[in-house]
């Protein structure tokens, strides 16, 4: 007995909270770590990359148009003679920014609506759920296009549109999570202690419904980046001369035949970033969602 207690005590030195535990699980998955590596790489690129790029992002040099990749321009130049590498690097900032902000926006709004619906139920639930139904029945890209048309095309408005179309996804997720947690025994025990409803909401329900939101959020960042690129591609997102990747693709479409590098690199950049978030999201899901554990 004494022995076990000692071992017990020793084990206890590494106090691991549930998040730490999840992190440990996350680290075990190779793909997830690769995904996080990619994401971190792009985040660092977004923060520090522009400091090291060979050329300013908007520096035009019409005499150097459409040069293929070379020692001077690793990714070649575009139709303004701008260095594509510099623009792709700077583009990371825009895409990540859009991804994060749009998702944070939809998570915040979706959480509020979802919690209201899930916790208070009755007519609040009915109204909010119907609203989600309506929004989900919309073809989302059309909804985004309509929203951008109303607000005018710009990166900010594209971001708002993406945030809006993602709200019902998070709202529903949180609603269902709240509904299921509400029935958990520890909620019952909190009530038995005499805790007030709103306090239960804040200290028990909210933190416990966050795991799937984090997973979904990571994956949603990936989709948001693609959606932003799609809007940029349609001319409804970032405006010239911003080096947003989707816009870069749209701008260089006509050079696909004679200057393919103008299309390949921004495309690959989108794909890699999105892949990174997807890998990471998968890893997080496995780490945070005990159902997925084998």
């Amino acid at each position, binding site marked *: 007995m004494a022995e076990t207690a000692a071992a017990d005590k020793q084990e206890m030195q590494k106090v691991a909270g549930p998040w730490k535990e999840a992190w440990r699980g996350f680290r075990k998955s190779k793909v997830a770590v690769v995904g996080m590596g990619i994401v971190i790489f792009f985040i660092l690129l977004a923060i520090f990359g522009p400091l090291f790029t060979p050329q300013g992002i908007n520096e035009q040099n*019409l005499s150097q*148009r459409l040069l293929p990749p070379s020692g001077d321009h690793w990714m070649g130049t575009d*139709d303004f003679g701008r260095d594509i590498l510099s623009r792709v690097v700077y583009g990371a900032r825009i895409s990540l920014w859009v991804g994060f902000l749009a998702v944070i926006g939809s998570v915040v709004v979706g959480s509020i609506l979802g919690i209201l619906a899930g916790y208070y139920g009755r007519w609040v639930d009915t109204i909010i759920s119907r609203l989600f139904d309506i929004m989900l029945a919309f073809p989302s890209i059309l909804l985004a296009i309509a929203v951008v048309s109303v607000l*005018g*095309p710009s990166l900010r408005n594209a971001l708002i549109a993406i945030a809006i179309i993602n709200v019902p996804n998070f709202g529903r997720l949180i609603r269902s999570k709240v509904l299921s947690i509400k029935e958990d025994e520890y909620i019952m025990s909190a009530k038995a202690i005499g805790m007030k409803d709103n306090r239960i909401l804040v200290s028990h329900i909210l933190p416990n419904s966050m795991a799937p939101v984090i997973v979904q959020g990571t994956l949603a960042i990936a989709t948001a980046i693609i959606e932003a690129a799609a809007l940029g591609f349609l*001319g409804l997102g970032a405006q*010239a001369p911003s080096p947003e990747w989707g816009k870069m693709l749209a*701008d260089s479409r006509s050079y696909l*035949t*004679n200057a393919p590098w103008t299309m390949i690199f921004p495309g690959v950049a989108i794909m890699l970033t999105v892949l990174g978030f997807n890998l990471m999201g998968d890893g997080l899901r496995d780490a945070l969602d005990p159902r997925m554990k084998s």
Partner: protein
Amino acid sequence: SGGDSESGGEGGDSESGGEKVLIFGRGGDSVSLDPITVTDGESFKVTKNIFDTLINFGEQDTEIEAGLASDWQASEDGLTYTFQLQEGVTFHDGTDFNAEAVVANFERWAAGDADQFPYYKSMFGGFGDEEEHVIESVEATGDYEVVIKLKRPQAPFLKNLAMSPFGIASPTAFEEAGESFGDNPVGTGPFKFVEWQRNDTVTIEKFDDYWVDGEPKLDQVVFRAIPDNSARLNALLSGEIDLADGITPSDSETIENDENLQLFERPSMNVGYLGLTTTREPFDDPKVRQAMNHAIDRQAIVDSFFEGRAEVAKNPMPPVISGYNDSIEGYEYDPEKAKELLAEAGLEDGFTMELWAMPVPRPYMPDGQKVAEAIQSDLSEVGITAEIVSYEWATYLEKAAAGEADAFLLGWTGDNGDADNFLYVLLDQDNIGSNNYTYYENQELHDLLIEAQTEVDEDARNELYMQAQEIIHEDAPWVPLAHSTPLLAGGTNVIDFKAHPTGSDKLSSVDLE
């Protein structure tokens, strides 16, 4: 690349029975095939081949030539026109073309309203008894003679008649069809209407009884809507279409390098410009506007984004139009000069402005966004910070018309090749709120332009326009950028295709090898 028109995805089974079918890929679908009801070029591209007009434009210019009217005389005062009509012409429905038919068409048009027949209103001032209606009467004075009387002289009258909207339709057909005439058009043109699949294809086929001998040469023409420029080019490369409209200048190299393809240039009858809203600071100061003119390197823009397939503009109208003032010296690219002018205007530190760029390619400006980027970079050299702004096309036009833009890219394609259709429409104070987006106002200019509208003497009229251009040059409400040459491309098997400056091409003499 493997893009000769016989291979490609469709394989060899495409040519059924040796018929000559031309597939014409274009950017959009037609709105209606009743030419009088529409204003869009994509409709006219088709109706031009179904309908003939009394007067024709030249093959590749806007000189007037005989059409369904084989001859005509104008009275001295310019108020009466007598037309002799071509005999032996029949409509596709078998009915005869004659003076009665012409009168019936005019009557139909005059009985309409601006909503039904917008171009009639624009070109002839109004309808029926309205004061602004230029045409007083249209009478058949013989089986093949028609007399048109005007209330006041209209200099471009004959050119107006040559415009596609005024194609002569079969009275029997339009009376019978009523509203749905646009779905079953019947004219005298080289091709008969066959089928229209919305947003996809319009098919027309050879009219065997066409009144011009030996025409048309093709058996069938299919107009195919492929909105995406690259997709359209791809379709051409893979041989799915024979002719493609709206080729981006940057693709011209690809086409020229392909031995199976040829490039067609559409003679320029347009202008692309940067409008400076004269009611907004600081563009209310002519000095600033001139400075803008000096600050922008048009040649570089033309070289890069029109791939050289445009002429640098110095006037608001293209040189092909009579009355063009070639003696004006355009503002040369001179950033120093621009800075000086700005300093004179009290803006030595530059200023910040919005630069509006159109979201869609137009014939006069294949890529507004890129031109804007180039301008932005030029302006930054002289200390002006321009933020590029774009709206959806409909919003763009509305907002620009409301004077909400500081500076905006826009352009114009001539309807009838007349100077009036550029200078008056775009820069006269009468058209503020409409096509005069810069809100530019100059009484002297206004007087000149009004006078020119009724001046029948060609030389005197040209003189008036020369003067007008000088005034505009000085006031500089625009930075005229370019007169572009819109591009088309086709397989080398396409023979005798002549692109028309108005944008609608008659395909009666085109042949396929």
